[in-house]
């Protein structure tokens, strides 16, 4: 009886403590699962730009000239640096992105990136940025296992682990095992 009460207390308190971390890892987990389809941390915007003075001469495109072009064609952007990654291509670094300009045609793209409000910090933490956070996330991972185990024994009776809970738990165990076998047998 005492053991069950202790089990409930552990489950309840760990649930409270790690409520927010579960949201962080859950949210960023979904976002990072689809990393091939989008940038989960930044909103990337591409806008065309056209320099009417083109063709431009690489020799005359010094820092002040590039700043001058920026003021004319992208006045909202702040210059950081520039260089020529390849012949005929000017890359200008701006405060929140970069601009690639074909100096012959004058056509270019302004690429700006802005941190996603919730996902950037969530993904930042998910990537285990620093060693202290690694310790915190280790504690969280262990606590998740405790939460899972203690969760099995919260209820007694027909909905507990001896009844309906057993079937649901078995289903949950089978799902990853089935996938694992399918992958090992290279079914897909």
């Amino acid at each position: 009886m005492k053991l069950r009460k202790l089990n409930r207390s552990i489950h309840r308190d760990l649930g409270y403590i790690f409520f927010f971390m579960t949201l962080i890892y859950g949210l960023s987990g979904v976002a990072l699962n689809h990393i091939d389809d989008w940038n989960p941390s930044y909103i990337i915007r591409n806008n065309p730009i056209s320099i009417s003075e083109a063709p431009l001469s690489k020799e005359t495109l010094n820092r002040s000239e590039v700043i001058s072009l920026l003021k004319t064609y992208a006045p909202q952007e702040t210059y950081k640096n520039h260089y020529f990654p390849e012949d005929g291509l000017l890359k200008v670094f701006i405060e929140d992105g970069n601009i690639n300009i074909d100096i012959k045609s004058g056509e270019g793209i302004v690429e700006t990136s802005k941190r996603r409000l919730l996902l950037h910090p969530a993904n930042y933490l998910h990537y285990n940025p620093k060693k202290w956070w690694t310790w915190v996330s280790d504690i969280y991972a262990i606590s998740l296992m405790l939460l899972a185990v203690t969760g099995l024994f919260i209820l007694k009776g027909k909905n507990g682990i001896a009844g309906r809970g057993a079937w649901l738990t078995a289903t949950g165990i089978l799902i990853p095992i089935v996938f694992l076998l399918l992958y090992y047998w290279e079914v897909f």
Partner: protein
Amino acid sequence: MIRKILGVAALIAILASCGNKTQKEETTGKEVTKVTVDEVLADMQKYVDQEVIISGIVNHVCSHGGKRMFIMGSNPDAAIKITPDDAIGVFEKELEGSDVLVTGIVKELRIDEAYVDNLEKEVAEGADNEAIHDHSAGTHDEEAENEKQAQLDAMRNKIAESEQGYYSQFWIEASEFEVKDHDHAEEGHEHEHMEDEDHSHEEGHDHEHGEEGHTH
């Protein structure tokens, strides 16, 4: 009570998003060599396992995870890969275009046939690897797989061409970094490279930093 909890949660989120433009304050007391990107690129083997201080313009930060950035010297054809140590954690994308001062240890990875064979197995199992890391996020699986296979083939060719049966990849594992004070556009100052070297990036070389970092 709820307000307090939400306040603390918001503070944690803000702190996490603040990035890492600070420098580690510890000093190791070890001898550190101050070098330019060009000097290191000219002979990276010479600096292996040495702690160096290097500055350059960040021309790329891996936006997925920020575990790598590349800094270039006077010739944008080549750039040095910088990885963060545990204390730095990650590099933020906002560093692109910034002039940074990096302190770190030059690392070498020797790639031979056995290494590539092992790597091929890892790639087949879907693991990412530093030596073959690419920026293929956003492409379809098949395309990414073909790209990785092409990289493996290129690595084998490179080994076959080498006299010693291996080739090396070099990078710097940063223990400290800081963003140099940035000249504001309005001031119109010319960019000054470390040690007053002229470094205007206007030489017009083709630039490919390569996904593998600098290789010899």
